[in-house]
């Protein structure tokens, strides 16, 4: 049997061989991950790199690097509050307790209950870049603080997304604007149900698209969209504000409407969020 060469070569590795081996390894990895067996590697990487990310972000924060983000958020919040105020004033002015108003109270009550739920506060410590074509962020709270997969993540203004995966110290959140995100939604005033999808925009706050299940009832501009909620609040609890209908483009020919929703949350300036850990379904 031929003995393997142990003589130390001056140029021990041929670059092309190395390239070929590594490319094959990468393709093999992709194949393995496509079949859904790649999560152990992610868990290991998250366990090691997650705390580093938290640390790097903590080092950064004293320099006040998100001043702009905060100011933007305050301005948005101000605008949202003014709109809300005007809407509520209009509501008070209108007479009679109709079904629409009842539904709105219902949504508000559900949200109040949701606000009283057991939550874990967390900070966004890392953001996926647009080069990866996804909208995901890392939080500095993990299973050690009760965060599990498929929990709802709330921002100060509304729904942020859901937890994709969690390790002991960190969790990965899929944002609403990601192309892969779908949330069951209720059009605020009415009882209309629909699906809110992310448009996959890679920067800024992004826009959401609402598919209304009942083709007859098309929402109006300015309507508030809240989450529908799933069984046991997994992955989304009910009654959380998502956004406001910004534009409705109706096409009479195929009797559909394209509804664009502006989210309440500014996804380009996420910082403090809360994860709902003790989810009870409302009503």
């Amino acid at each position, binding site marked *: 049997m031929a003995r393997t060469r142990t003589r130390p070569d001056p140029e021990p590795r041929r670059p092309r061989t190395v390239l070929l081996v590594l490319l094959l390894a990468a393709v093999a990895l992709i194949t393995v991950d496509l079949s859904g067996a790649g999560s152990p590697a*992610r868990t290991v990487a998250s366990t090691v790199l997650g705390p580093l990310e938290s640390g790097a972000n903590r080092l950064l924060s004293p320099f006040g690097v998100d001043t702009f983000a905060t100011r933007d958020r305050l301005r948005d919040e101000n605008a949202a509050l003014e709109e809300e105020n005007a809407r509520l004033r209009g509501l008070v002015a209108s007479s009679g307790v109709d079904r629409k108003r009842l539904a709105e109270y219902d949504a508000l009550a559900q949200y109040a209950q949701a606000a009283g739920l057991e939550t874990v506060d967390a900070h966004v410590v890392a953001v996926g870049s647009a080069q990866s074509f996804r909208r995901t962020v890392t939080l500095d709270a993990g299973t050690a603080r009760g965060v599990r997969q498929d929990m709802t993540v709330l921002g100060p203004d509304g729904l942020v997304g859901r937890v994709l995966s969690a390790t002991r110290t960190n969790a990965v959140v899929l944002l609403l604007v990601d192309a892969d995100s779908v949330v069951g939604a209720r059009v605020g005033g009415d009882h209309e149900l629909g699906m809110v999808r992310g448009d996959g925009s890679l920067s800024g706050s992004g826009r959401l698209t609402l598919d209304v299940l009942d083709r007859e009832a098309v929402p109006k501009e300015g309507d508030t969209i809240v989450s529908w909620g799933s069984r046991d609040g997994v992955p989304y609890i009910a009654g959380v504000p998502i956004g406001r209908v910004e534009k409705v483009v109706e096409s009479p020919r195929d009797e559909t409407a394209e509804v664009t929703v502006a989210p309440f949350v500014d996804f380009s300036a996420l910082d403090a969020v809360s994860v709902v850990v003790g989810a009870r379904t409302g009503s």
Partner: protein
Amino acid sequence: MSVGRAALVGALLVAAVVVQVSVLTPLVPTGVAPDVVLVVVVAVGLCAGAADGAVAGFVGGLLLDAAPPSDHLLGQWALALTVVGFLAGTVDRGSRPSWFSDAVTVAASAFVGTSLFALSGLALDQPGVAASSVLGVVALATVYDVVLGLAVVPAVRALLARLEPTPRVRW
């Protein structure tokens, strides 16, 4: 590559991943952030040759694939950056390094790397990868990477040279 050098490159890659996802991406409002890992891989390729560049690219890409906020397939960045490290390593190293050749190499590598990632996403039908958005992302990323490369490539070269001076240092 000696053990010391390999350890240094490994540490650089880990630091690059952390800086990229936790420091630069939250700071940049465009969503597209400088690819720190890609630039470090190019620097390693330029200084240490094609084989070491490819290995550094594979390791750096794997880190980027598995590091927390990522939700794309494992191996996508590994594939793209392996090619990037190899290509950067094939650039003629006999000549004296200049900032211009560094910039051109980084630009070409950034274009190839981000395009390869996007193409693998398109080929595998991954969500979020739309042909319409790819070109803008790749162009912006290339510009960012060239600017970052002007600082990072000389720094990595100096670090590697300090750790293990190459025999032929006289010009």
